[in-house]
C-alpha cells in the first residue's frame, strides 16, 4: 500500500463523514407526505350542520382534536366506502389515545337522499366514532363552497338513480383549527398514518 492509496482512503472517509454530518445537522424537519398547506396555514372555515340526533354540529367546537373531513354520499358504492375503510385502517395504526383525538367527519354531497340519520348509519358501518353530517341544501352549499368541493348530480341509467360526481379528497385540520394537509384518493394508508403521527406529536 503506498502513500497515495492511504491519502485517497483518508480523504474519501473524511468526505463521507462530512456529508453524513451535514445531512444530520441541516436536515429539514420531517414533512408531510400528503399535499401540505403552506404557512400561514389557512384557518378551516366553520362548518355548521346537523347530526343524527338532531343536535347542531360546529367545527369550531372540535378544537383540540384533529379532524379528517371527507365529502361523499351514502349511495356511493366504491370510492366513499374505500375512503372510509382506509381512514378506519389509518386510525387503527395509531396508539389508542392518539386515535381518540382524531375525528373523522363525513359530510354528504347528496342532501336530497342523505338525512343526518342515514349518513350516520352509513359511517357507523365503518367506525361508530365517525361523525356523519347533513343539513339543508343551503347550509351544505356554503360548506361545499368554503372547502372547494365540486359536486354534481349525474343522471344516468343506473337503478341507483342519479350518481354524484364529487371531490374525493380528505382534508386534515389540526388542533388549532388550521388546514394542514390533504390526501387525494390514491394516497397510501401508510402515508396518512405518517402525517397523522406528525400532527399528533
Amino acid at each position, binding site marked *: 500500500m503506498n502513500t497515495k492509496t492511504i491519502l485517497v482512503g483518508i480523504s474519501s472517509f473524511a468526505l463521507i463523514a462530512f456529508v453524513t454530518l451535514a445531512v444530520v445537522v441541516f436536515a429539514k424537519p420531517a414533512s408531510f407526505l400528503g399535499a401540505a398547506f403552506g404557512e400561514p396555514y389557512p384557518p378551516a372555515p366553520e362548518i355548521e350542520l346537523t347530526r343524527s340526533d338532531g343536535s347542531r354540529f360546529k367545527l369550531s367546537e372540535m378544537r383540540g382534536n384533529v379532524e379528517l373531513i371527507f365529502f361523499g354520499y*351514502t*349511495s*356511493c*358504492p*366504491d*370510492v366513499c*366506502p*374505500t375512503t372510509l*375503510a*382506509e381512514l378506519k*385502517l389509518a386510525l387503527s395504526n395509531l396508539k389508542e389515545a392518539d386515535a381518540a383525538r382524531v375525528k373523522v367527519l363525513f359530510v354528504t354531497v347528496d342532501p336530497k337522499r342523505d338525512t343526518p340519520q342515514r349518513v350516520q*348509519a*352509513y359511517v357507523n*358501518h365503518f367506525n361508530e366514532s365517525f361523525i356523519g353530517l347533513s343539513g339543508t341544501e343551503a347550509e351544505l352549499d356554503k360548506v361545499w363552497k368554503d372547502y372547494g368541493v*365540486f*359536486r354534481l348530480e*349525474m343522471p*344516468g*341509467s*343506473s*337503478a*341507483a338513480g342519479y*350518481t354524484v*360526481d*364529487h*371531490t*374525493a*379528497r380528505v382534508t386534515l385540520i389540526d388542533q388549532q383549527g388550521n388546514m394542514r394537509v390533504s390526501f*387525494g*384518493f*390514491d394516497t*397510501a*394508508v*401508510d402515508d396518512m398514518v405518517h402525517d397523522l403521527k406528525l400532527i399528533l406529536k
Partner: protein
Amino acid sequence: MLKKQILFLLYMILLAACQPVKITTGVLDVKNIWARPSANRDNGAIYFMIENGATQNDTLLSVEADIATAVELHLSEMEGDHMSMHQQDAVSVAAGEAVVFSPGGLHVMLVGLTRELKAGDTFDVTLQFEITGEKTVTVIVRDDVNDD
C-alpha cells in the same frame, strides 16, 4: 468470455421480465373475489380479477346476484380532483390478458342490497361472458383489504 455470456444472460432475463406476461392457462378464470361490508338496502361493490388464458377475446356482459335488486358494471374515474362513476355496458377481456376490478376503478355495483354484508359472509354471483358463458363464483365479504 464467460463474463460476457453472463451479462448477456442477465440482459435476456431483464428483457423477459419487462415483457407483459401473456396468460396461457387455456381457460378464463375469475380470481380474488371480494366485496366490502355494507348495510342492508345500501349499495355495495364486488371486486375481482378476470384472467383470460383462453385463445379468444371475451367480454363480461352482465353479473347476476340474488342479494341485490340490480347488479351493474361501473367504472370510477378520477377527473381532475373529483371522482366520476360511469356505467359500463360490458367489459372486454382480451385473450392472454387480465382485467382487474378494484376500488376506485372497475367494480360490480350491487344496487339496493337485500341483506347486510358482514365481514366473513359469502355469497354466489353469476358472471355472464360472451364466449365462456355463465360462470358462478363465490364472493367473500372482507374488511381487511388494503389495496395500496
